[in-house]
């Protein structure tokens, strides 16, 4: 039985298929770089640090409770956060613009899908799907070093076991994914802003989106002699600073409410632009 959920699922699948190069190549490159750095270090300078380094690593990972120890692999996964942000921004800039550029926009408009559904599918892709695509890469990048080090740390008498390595990597990956989509929700105004320009711009949507931010900030300083807009941008993008978050508290915070309202308004603007901007 076909439902609206089937339809929305198909829209998400279409986004992943259409932007497969961007969505797969970026995490692959980041993962390969991270693993390369790790093994260069381990096989190079770290190798000489010897027993004391392993004891130190083991003390961080092996003895404390899992929830405290997970901070270490979570920190190691941090390079993925800007990669996800960059991937999302590139995706958001091109997703609606590309449809109009290659004229497939008319085909998508011939389907019984509302402009709101089409825009929401893009927003959901940026907030949830892109981090989900990155999640297995994060897991592999955490698992490989931990499994590599586990036997040596166990031999060093730290009590660190392979099973714990698995648990740590898995726990860190899940937490990383949760924090990323939480950041995505907090940055919904940014997502809406880029979708708005993707739906509106006749060309170079990225420059339009970025340029208009600078222009608005300059206009405010020049005309009103205030920097409210700069504060707002700072407030919105501070979610970029990746760190440990209390998931339920963040979900039900005023910050989240404001982000959802502002983001909703901008997404509605993007849906309106998409409808009447052929």
């Amino acid at each position: 039985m076909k439902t609206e959920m089937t339809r929305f699922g198909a829209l998400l699948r279409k986004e992943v298929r259409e932007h497969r190069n961007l969505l797969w190549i970026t995490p692959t490159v980041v993962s390969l770089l991270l693993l390369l750095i790790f093994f260069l270090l381990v096989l190079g300078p770290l190798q000489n640090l010897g027993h004391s380094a392993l004891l130190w690593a083991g003390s961080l990972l092996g003895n404390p409770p899992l929830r405290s120890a997970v901070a270490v692999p979570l920190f190691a996964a941090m390079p993925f956060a800007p990669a996800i942000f960059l991937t999302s921004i590139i995706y958001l800039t091109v997703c609606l613009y590309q449809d109009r550029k290659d004229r497939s926009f008319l085909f998508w408009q011939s389907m019984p899908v509302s402009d709101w559904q089409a825009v929401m599918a893009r927003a959901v892709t940026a907030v949830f799907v892109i981090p989900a695509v990155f999640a297995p890469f994060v897991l592999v990048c955490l698992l490989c070093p931990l499994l590599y080090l586990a036997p040596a740390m166990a031999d060093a008498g730290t009590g660190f076991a392979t099973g714990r390595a698995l648990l740590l990597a898995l726990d860190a990956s899940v937490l990383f994914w949760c924090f990323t989509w939480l950041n995505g929700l907090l940055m919904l105004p940014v997502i809406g802003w880029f979708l708005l320009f993707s739906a509106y711009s006749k060309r170079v949507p990225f420059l339009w989106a970025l340029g208009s931010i600078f222009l608005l900030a300059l206009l405010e300083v020049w005309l009103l002699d205030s920097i409210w807009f700069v504060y707002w941008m700072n407030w919105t993008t501070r979610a970029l600073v990746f760190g440990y978050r209390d998931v339920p508290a963040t979900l039900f915070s005023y910050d989240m409410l404001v982000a959802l309202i502002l983001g909703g308004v901008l997404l509605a603007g993007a849906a309106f632009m998409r409808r009447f901007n052929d």
Partner: protein
Amino acid sequence: MENSLLDRRTAPGAAVGEGLGEGGRESIVKARGLRKSYGKLRALDGVELNIATGSISGLIGPNGAGKTTALKALLGLIDVQGDLEVAGMDPRAARHRLMDEVCFIADVGILPGWMTSRQLLDHVEKVHFRFDRRRAEKLLSTTEIPADKRIRSLSKGMVTQLHLSVVMAIDASLLVLDEPTLGLDIMYRKTFYDRLLNDYYDGRRTIIISTHQVEEIEHLLTHLLFIDKGRIVLDQSLQAMAEHYVEVAVDPEQREAARRLGPMHSRELLGQLVCLYGGVARQQLEALGEVRTPAVADLFVARLTGEKGRQTEGNQNEN
């Protein structure tokens, strides 16, 4: 085959009434005073339309006449002023719901080039609840379109065939075609319209075709709509057109008599005068030479040059 196809088409000829199309049938498209401007340019200038369910209407006009704008308005792709109802809905308020009932093929390849035809079917199957995948696959099996090749690598003819197969597998009540065979070679063009009539049209569905290649579609049409400068200048069934307009290949000795009857349009063809009349009794014209029903293209030229001629005369009189 031709006869049975003709039987399936709407019986034309009746007057168009409020809310009713030709033959007294319900109208699937009702438009009153549609207006749309792009800056100073009036793309639609008070368009009135009543298209009957089950008809095949040709929307014909020169470049820039407002054909595509009118079709986009019917599909809810642009905002227009005026009253508009398509399949019982206002396209401006419910475009996505309307697309359950309406399909369209545009003048250029609009299928996403990054998809394969299999992925396209997968997507449409999940998104369009009135899409019959088995029917689409059956239709595609009669073509040479590979299932796993990206659409961007197919020829334009193949892309059009693919789009037509997808559209034909959707149980819609209105199909809108905007220059669907533009840029296709003659084989593909013929196949396109043959498939449309043989495998899709069932007398229940309505088709609106906009094209420059009038000769190719005039045998399909039940209704004619001429558009010029954003206005509908002719709205008539094919049968009414055949009764109202007559073309005469005038005998050399009847040239003066033919001119006195005030033809809408006249031209010299291989040294013979050919006149087109509107609303003159056929019996009266038979005395002038060989009488025949005009081709749609000739009527189109006659109506438009006649309009321009009258406008020029009017301007000169005003001056």
